[in-house]
């Protein structure tokens, strides 16, 4: 899709114990990176109900990031495995709807990985930029009435 100065809106669900802290580190280290992510702190990536992801996309997000501790390091032992199992099924559902699976990212980012956090956000922003805006609500509305 053409660029047209499109700035992706990305919603990030960041687990408190690892990824959110890693994001903080990127900030305090004054890393320069794409400003396109709006972060939401959750206790664990396993807290992220697939409903949140879908709601974010339906309400205007062009992409959603779920970030948690590396497998084996989850503060609650099994939370990130739950996220690991839910996301592929959700991606399959989204694909059927017509939402590219590449709009949903699942990444493991530890508290000390400020650089990695910045890289993920940059990389995801570019990927979504190429995919183009999702504009879900407007496009669905356009097909809701008479043919």
């Amino acid at each position, binding site marked *: 899709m053409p660029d047209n100065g499109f700035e992706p809106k990305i919603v990030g669900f960041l687990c408190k114990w690892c990824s959110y802290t890693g994001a903080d580190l990127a900030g305090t280290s004054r890393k320069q990176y794409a400003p396109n992510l709006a972060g939401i702190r959750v206790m664990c990536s396993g807290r992220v109900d697939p409903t949140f992801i879908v709601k974010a996309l339906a309400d205007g997000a062009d992409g959603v990031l779920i970030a948690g501790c590396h497998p084996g390091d989850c503060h609650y032992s099994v939370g990130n495995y*739950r996220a690991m199992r*839910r996301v592929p*099924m959700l991606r399959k559902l989204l*694909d059927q*709807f*017509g939402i590219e699976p590449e709009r949903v990212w699942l990444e493991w980012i530890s508290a000390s990985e400020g650089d990695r956090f910045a890289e993920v956000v940059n990389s995801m922003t570019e990927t979504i930029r190429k995919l183009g805006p999702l504009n879900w609500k407007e*496009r669905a509305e356009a*097909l809701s009435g008479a043919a």
Partner: protein
Amino acid sequence: MAKPKVAFYWCGSCGGCEEAVVDLAEKILDVVAAVDIVLWPVALDFKLKDIESYEPGEIAVTFINGSVRLSEHEEWVKMLREKSQLVIAFGSCSHLGGIPGLINMNTAQQVLENKYLKSVSVDNADGVIPMPTNSVDGYDLDLPAVWNSVRRLDEVIDVDYYLPGCAPPPDLILEAVGAILKGELPPKGSVLSPAKSLCESCPLNESKPEDLTIDEFKRVATSQPDPETCYLAQGFVCLGPSTRSGCGERCIRANMPCRGCFGPTPEAMDQGTKLISAIASSGTSDTSESAASVAEGFVDPVGTLYRFSLPSSILKRGLKNV
């Protein structure tokens, strides 16, 4: 005191909800005695003029089933809303969109082309497609246009209560009618069915594990369900965890897993994503590859998770290949 006026109306309906009322069998005579049925197109010839001449609120209760699909439906339900004190969305189609809501994955153009141009049995070398306006040998004939999406009743008018099910079971209908006649209804906007998930009342719930673990999905096409064990425990997809209770588990008693016709449980914003949460979260896979491999075995997520409720899902409709 005059008997309360009651109306039954159908939009995009298969007639099953009408049959459900007829299935009250002998009890229907009690209902008929207690109310004055002023409108019921399947069984009674009515005068539209009479309904139009009613004062606002003159009809005590109107039950509307079927999904809204045409402008005529919209006109009718708006008129009935004005004339009725209570409007009850009756059945899955008016409550959630129903199975016809699956058309939200496609467009009207695709429907027309598949039927009239691409069908294996259609003989249509001239590529004729029915049109909203036609002139045939000088005669003007019109047809309503087909919409791209199915709508729920509450997207078009204000709805007071919902009576769920495809079709609502007779005992639930009787309870609702009884509550209305006694004036003992819950808060406006309620679904007239217990506020808990199907699992809680399911006859198989003793074998439902605390942590649902499905590492391999089974399909009833190629496996026979065991009627004594929770279907999810066996690996069959069953929508029980995210579906409201109240149906009597009639499908489970015929040894088939639930497909969610009662709609989502009260706190679930979306019936489908809620079930993904229930069935995907636990399992033995602990690498992204094995997790992806398990997900592969779950066929047709949209059609299974939103069989009855696509128009009431968060995403509402599909936009792939449209």
